[in-house]
């Protein structure tokens, strides 16, 4: 499959049978038009505003600008990581793509099909290809269902397997995520958090999707378990050629699994580039602060470096600043930053930044 | 607080509308019309009238929706319509009988609470003791006894043994309290029996839950005596759900009053309702049911408001 092995050293028991089935599935995945073989998802100026209502009759008085003009594209088989603090809108982006909300504005192109324009029935059909795994392993599994039923829910809705095939599918999925096949008759409460996330992943994979949104899937787990799950996801990506959006707030984790990373703040993307470039040359002040906040395994280096501390408070998403969203906390902010919103521009080599102070955005000098 | 009260009162109006619609619709669904009754009766008295005439006179030839609106608007002016059979306004008819029913309900309430609350608290304090079990068993038995059955037995056996019969004529409380209570005591007690059983268990359960709370444990460890704990701390907090239960028991009590009034010759609204129903006297039945519904709504409102007043944690929405 892929030459560059990105997964960690966790040994996953994938037997011979499963390998065949994996190949089978890859063949069965939805065909993609030749031109777009590369680009599987394109998000254009996505806006998601939630109305704030007041009074008995629920008049709208304001809007929470959860996602405010976000654009990006993802190539097939790659992972886009989205990082940001709570309230940055990253989870909302994931939910919008899966059509959990009706988006306020913008377009989402999946395989050149505009998701935002699809009716409920058509969207339902697309669910076989676009899936989501969520954060809470305790709430997302129905306590009254067996593992087998949980994994089979998707296939049963869409009638993709029948009768005896069901058992096989469950077995394959469990094996794929590294769980024992005998677990299929148990109930969720008998498992730990990490195991439940694996079950969630198995459920997501049961429909053989080409695209999965991973919304903070490891945030609720212990650090060591996080590593295992991330490794598992990367392994699956290699084997089944699935595209991910990986949403999280821990930059080190996101960066590990992602090919490209988008840094979000208050509903807008501040910086978007490859994960390597993000670490080597972070351009946006916010990214720099995030990186400096992440601990480095080497204690000497960690203690020796300079930490960037953000001053100020995060503004309200109902009433974002007039200029750059980050201006209230940025140490480089000036008049222009307060007044004018910076454009989201490519400053070279596919490295996008929204900041007035970065050379190449406007010629007013660097930092 | 005042804003909340006004808001709640305003919200009563749509509920009232719906209640009226339901009552009106139900009435109209009953087969056999009042008009036929009237024609029949008048015919028997020697007067020949046509159904159409009667209809026109009573305003019943207009479409149903129109009739409904006339009635509904009338309510706000205090005009509940006129009885089709008696030459009296519904309101005055109800007014006459209301006192009796209210007295029955209030007495029942008093008896219920006087018995159930102290006993319930006692049972909670002495959980799982012999007296606890005994009282609980008795209360369950009380709940299971049909009111009308006990009432029947009460009417039959004392009559057989002691030639006892309940007073047949109604005397208002203000005229002659003793005579009045003689009439009301037995039915109230009977009505209270089953409700006491139910409420006692609720009081006990709720108090037990309250007693498990941390702040009670703190009081214990501070050395505060049991009696004081019960009265000052547990009682107040436990009473909140109990108030709801009391409020919720009102519809049941009213229903029970229908039976009791029937059996003990109390001239209350329940008895009136059954009579008028047989006559298909729409306005009166509507009025009676409506009055009951209004009482229930008012009681609910009071319960809600006292909730907010007693428990500061509950948000004033």
């Amino acid at each position, binding site marked *: 499959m892929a030459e560059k092995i990105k997964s960690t050293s966790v040994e996953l028991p994938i037997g011979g049978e499963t390998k065949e089935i994996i190949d089978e599935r890859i063949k069965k995945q939805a065909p993609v038009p030749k031109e777009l073989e590369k680009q599987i998802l394109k998000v254009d100026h996505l806006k998601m505003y939630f109305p704030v209502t007041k009074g008995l009759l629920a008049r709208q008085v304001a809007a929470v600008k959860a996602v405010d003009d976000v654009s990006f594209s993802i190539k097939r088989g790659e992972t886009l990581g989205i990082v940001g603090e709570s309230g940055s809108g990253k989870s909302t982006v994931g939910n919008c793509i899966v059509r*959990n909300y009706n988006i306020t504005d913008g377009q989402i192109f999946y395989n050149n099909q505009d998701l935002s324009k699809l009716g409920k029935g058509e969207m*339902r059909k697309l669910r*076989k290809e676009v*899936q*989501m795994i*969520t954060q*809470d392993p305790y*709430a*997302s*599994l*129905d306590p009254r*269902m067996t593992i087998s039923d949980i994994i089979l*829910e998707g296939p049963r*809705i*869409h009638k993709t397997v029948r009768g005896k095939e069901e058992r096989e599918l469950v077995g394959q999925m469990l094996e794929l995520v590294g769980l024992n096949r005998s677990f299929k008759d148990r109930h969720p409460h008998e498992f*730990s958090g*990490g*195991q439940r996330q694996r079950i*969630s992943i198995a*459920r997501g994979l049961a*429909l053989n999707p080409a695209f999965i949104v991973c919304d903070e899937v490891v945030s609720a787990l212990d650090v060591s*378990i996080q590593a295992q799950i991330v490794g598992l996801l990367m392994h699956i990506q290699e084997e089944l050629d699935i595209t991910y959006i990986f949403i999280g707030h821990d930059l080190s984790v996101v960066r590990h699994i992602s090919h490209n990373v988008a840094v979000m703040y208050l509903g807008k993307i501040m910086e978007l580039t490859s994960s390597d470039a993000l670490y080597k040359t972070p351009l946006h002040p916010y990214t720099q602060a995030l990186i400096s906040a992440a601990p480095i395994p080497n204690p000497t280096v960690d203690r020796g470096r300079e930490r960037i501390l953000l001053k100020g408070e995060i503004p309200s998403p109902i009433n974002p600043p007039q200029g750059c969203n980050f201006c209230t906390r940025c140490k480089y902010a000036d008049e222009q930053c307060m007044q004018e919103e910076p454009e989201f521009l490519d400053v070279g080599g596919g490295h996008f930044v929204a900041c007035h102070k970065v050379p190449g955005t406007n010629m007013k000098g660097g930092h | 607080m005042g804003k909340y009260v006004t808001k709640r009162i305003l919200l009563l109006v749509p*509920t009232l509308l*719906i*209640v009226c619609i*339901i*009552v009106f619709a*139900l009435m109209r669904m*009953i087969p056999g019309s009042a008009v036929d009754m009237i024609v029949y009766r008048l015919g028997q008295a020697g007067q020949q009238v046509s159904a159409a005439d009667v209809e026109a006179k009573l305003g019943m030839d207009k479409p149903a929706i129109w009739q409904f609106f006339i009635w509904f608007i009338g309510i706000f002016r205090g005009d509940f319509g006129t009885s089709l059979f008696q030459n009296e306004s519904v309101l005055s008819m109800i007014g006459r009988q209301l006192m009796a029913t209210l007295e029955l309900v209030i007495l029942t309430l008093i008896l219920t609470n006087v018995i159930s609350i102290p006993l319930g608290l006692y049972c909670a304090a002495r959980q799982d003791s012999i007296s606890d079990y005994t009282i609980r068993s008795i209360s369950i*038995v009380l*709940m*299971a*006894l*049909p009111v*009308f*059955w*006990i009432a*029947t037995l009460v*009417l*039959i056996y004392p*009559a*057989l043994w002691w030639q006892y019969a309940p007073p047949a004529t109604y005397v208002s409380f203000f005229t002659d309290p003793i005579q009045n209570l003689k009439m009301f005591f037995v039915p109230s007690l009977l009505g209270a029996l089953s409700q006491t059983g139910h409420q006692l268990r609720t009081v006990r359960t709720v108090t037990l839950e309250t007693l*498990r709370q941390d702040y009670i444990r703190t009081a214990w460890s501070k050395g505060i005596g049991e009696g004081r704990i019960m009265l000052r701390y547990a009682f107040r907090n436990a009473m909140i759900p109990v108030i709801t239960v009391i409020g919720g028991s009102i*519809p*049941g009590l*009213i*229903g*029970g009053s*229908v*039976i009791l009034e*029937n059996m003990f010759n109390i001239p209350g609204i329940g008895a009136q309702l*059954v009579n008028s*129903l047989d006559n298909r006297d729409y306005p009166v039945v509507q009025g*009676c*049911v409506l009055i*009951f*519904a*209004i009482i*229930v*709504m008012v009681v609910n409102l009071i319960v809600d408001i006292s909730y907010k007043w007693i428990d500061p944690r509950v948000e004033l929405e």
Partner: protein
Amino acid sequence: MKDLFKKKPMGALGLILLALFVLVAILADVLAPYPMVNGNMTVDVIHKLEPSSAEHLLGTDSLGRDVLSYLIYGARTSVILGICCTILSTLISIVIGVTSASIGGKFDLIIQRFVDGWQCIPGMLILIILMNIMGNGLVQLILAMAIPAGIGGSRMIRSSAISVKDAGYVKMSGILGGNVWWKMLKHIIPNIMPVILMGLAGSLGGVIMMEASMNFLGYGVDPGTPSWGYMITNQGRSNMYVAPWLALYPGILISIMVFASAMFGDAVRDLMDPRLKGGIGSYNSKKIAKIAARMGKKQTV
């Protein structure tokens, strides 16, 4: 089930009693000394209102019917009524409550207002009016009792449905492609089963009581069908100077049945109440040992 007998002996007793009543109801024709012929009870005009005798263990009533047989057939009426009514009203509650909660929005609002209004009207009055509309009879009585009970119970079901419908797994079901009906059937209803069962178990007693009251007032089943409530009015009260015991027997039976169902309902409720599970009071050494064992065996993912 085993829990019932171990922890709640009273509840088990209630269940046994109820089962007995059901048995009697089913085997009425066999058990009754004077079984029904062509849907009518045998009438013996000569032996009217007689006290207990060798032929008639509990005596006869004013029409010469055997009291014991009448009571046995009365059990059948009560059981049929109780079961049908409880099931029907629970179904109505579920339909109203769950759809109202799941669909939400304006639909929910309107239904809720309607239920509110309905609740304000005292139940007995509604029953009387409904029986007037539909006339007397077993089926009518079942409907008349089930509909208000169903509407009243929908509140409880709706509030538990609401607490469930925003759960993570319901959302996931939508993401997997489930529509409103799928979510209702596969996720919401199974997860509110405890509440539903609690309601079921407890309401049987109330139904019996209501039925008896209705029959008492004369609005219940038609006079031909044996009924305990009817016997109290018709036979007991009317003949109170001659045969006062006629009022006694049916009342005792009603009380026992209501009592049994109350005990059973209570026991079910206690066993299923999540608050009482694992509370401070309910820990015992066996349970602690079990938990400790499970913790020891737990894998590290």
